[in-house]
């Protein structure tokens, strides 16, 4: 029923410049996520840290096809998509630390990152809840006749939520310009998704709502980009929604400190061999676009940027107590 979409190993999807920008984004998200672990360990943030390492290919691939004013809703595993959509790392770190310069003035936290200037309507702490909201943004785009597209990222587990099905149905009957991006990282929080659904491919579910659906190697950033390109085109041309199931892997637990009793180290290591950054870097080296040294140099520069953003957040002030009572309504 489905073919796993992959990229052409012999050819680049993007120009050299674009490819380097894609690599830059992939590494930036990775370094940001690594720094976030350090941040979490230092006790500078509250709550839980839901890491994105291993899934960067999906965020970068999808966002490579989006305009600044396209809408996005995402899950609590949200910083990867935010960076890919153009969010400021300074503001992300500051929000994670609950500081006044954070995206939500320290009142939302990592699960509620919002940046309306880049169409980032909000991360969400409730599994699946952002799906109908993105559908609503698509409704606005259609009603106003703009060519904006609305994209919603959600995990495999969210496809078992009622609102997932409700939103797919609404998007389908009203032909809304929305792209449903399911990041199937194999685990629905701490449980294998295979135990929770009868379908081999979650994309099957979209077919029930007559929504065009594809499955793609989520660790293949070019492949993700390509299927997104088609979906976005369909949406902008009044062709209605598309469902993308990106097969990927969460290299860390559901959250930092997760005992990960539900899978083996061997499995994790196998998937690390298919790491999206590793795959894309190797391809670029093989095709002679970059060398190890260049990648090394790039990584180093990115680390410095991430560190700078981190320091900015560290030096940001605590929010004023007056903020407690603002923005309620």
């Amino acid at each position, binding site marked *: 029923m489905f073919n796993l979409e992959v990229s052409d190993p012999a050819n680049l999807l993007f120009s050299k410049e674009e490819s380097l920008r894609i690599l830059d984004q992939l590494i930036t998200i990775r370094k940001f996520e690594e720094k976030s672990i350090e941040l979490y360990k230092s006790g500078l943030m509250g709550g839980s840290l839901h890491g994105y390492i291993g899934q960067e290919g999906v965020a970068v691939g999808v966002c490579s096809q989006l305009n600044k004013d396209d809408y996005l809703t995402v899950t609590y595993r949200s910083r990867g998509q935010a960076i890919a959509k153009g969010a400021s790392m300074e503001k992300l770190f500051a929000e994670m630390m609950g500081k006044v310069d954070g995206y939500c*003035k320290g009142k939302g936290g990592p699960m509620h990152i*919002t940046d309306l200037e880049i169409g980032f309507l909000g991360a969400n702490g409730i599994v699946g809840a952002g799906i109908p*909201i993105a559908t609503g943004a698509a409704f606005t785009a259609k009603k106003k006749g703009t060519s904006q597209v609305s994209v919603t990222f959600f995990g495999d587990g969210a496809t078992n939520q009622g*609102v997932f099905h409700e939103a797919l149905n609404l998007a389908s009957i009203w032909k809304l310009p929305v792209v449903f991006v399911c990041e199937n990282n194999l685990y629905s929080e701490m449980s294998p998704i295979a135990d929770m659904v009868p379908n081999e491919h979650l994309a099957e579910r979209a077919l029930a709502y007559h929504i065009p659906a594809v499955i793609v190697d989520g660790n293949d950033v070019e492949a993700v980009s390509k299927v997104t390109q088609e979906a976005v085109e369909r949406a902008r041309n009044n062709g209605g929604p598309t469902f993308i199931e990106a097969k990927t892997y969460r290299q860390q637990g559901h959250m930092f400190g997760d005992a990960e009793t539900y899978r083996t180290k061997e499995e994790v290591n196998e998937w690390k061999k298919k790491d999206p950054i590793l795959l894309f870097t190797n391809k670029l080296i093989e095709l002679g676009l970059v060398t190890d040294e260049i990648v090394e140099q790039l990584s180093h520069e990115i680390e410095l940027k991430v560190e700078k953003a981190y320091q900015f957040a560290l030096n940001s002030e605590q929010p004023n107590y007056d903020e407690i009572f603002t923005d309620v309504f």
Partner: protein
Amino acid sequence: MTRQITYAEAINEALDEILREDESVFLLGEDIGHYGGVFKVTKGLYDKFGGERVIDTPISESGFIGLGIGAAMTGLKPIIEIMWVDFTLVAIDQILNQAAKFSYMSGGQTKVPLVIRTQGGGGRGNGAQHSQSLEGLFAQFPGIKVVCPSTPYDVKGLLKSSVAENGPVIFIEHKMLYNTKGEVPEEDYSIPLGKADIKRKGSDVTIVSLSRMVQFSLDAAKELEKEGIDAEIIDLRSLAPLDTETVIESVKKTNRLVVVHEAHTTFGWGAEIVSQVQQDAFDYLDGPIIRVGAEDVPIPYNLELEKEVLPQVKDIVKAVKEALYIEVK
């Protein structure tokens, strides 16, 4: 004399005017288009404004409320009809976790100007899942305003103000009030949210209520008048914002208070009024405050049993006498 129209007609008229005045407004709900709504509140609006503005939805409350939230966030002004307030419970995550919290969680970036029109209360044998009074539930959550109008005049003026809000409002009409008539001026007007209305001036006892119970309280006041008891009737009109000031001022004058609501007594919003009054007007109380509410059982189907469970005029009369020590328990 000002013209008399029904409560349902007053809502219809308000919606008509709002749709005419504001292009960004659209109506969303089950059977509100062609059919005109189960209580015929949206009758004729579909013909006037078309299916683009008056939109029938699937039976999918969570989905289309979520969609409404997304649309509201991105520049539209949805007025959603939920056929029975009981059905909001199906969509409670979208209403309370999403709509009510977005502004705060995003540090004020995201606004959700969404009105959820619905109807509640008992009195016509609709049984336990179609007769509830849930206003207190919503009032418990910061971030959403809760309006419960009691007259045709109020319902029109308050709906106008609710749509003008820049945040979510749950607007709970009463099924037994739709056919009640009252004076409504032809000219445009609105009533600010959070201002209680003294529906009858009196000196012996203050009765606080809203929605259908206001009329019951007025009827009780007529009976009490025959016995020389002069009751002051306060219609709160909204629970959030809550106008305690008007209540306190009245209690300082009458020294006695009876709180009447159709919601279940235990943990009902009446307890909140009692608490605030005893705190701010303790030295003006001449007797214990009496609450009148529904019995703590699901609303029974049988009309006679239902009547017994819901507060009636005689219960209010009795409560006032208790408050005045005319009848001592």
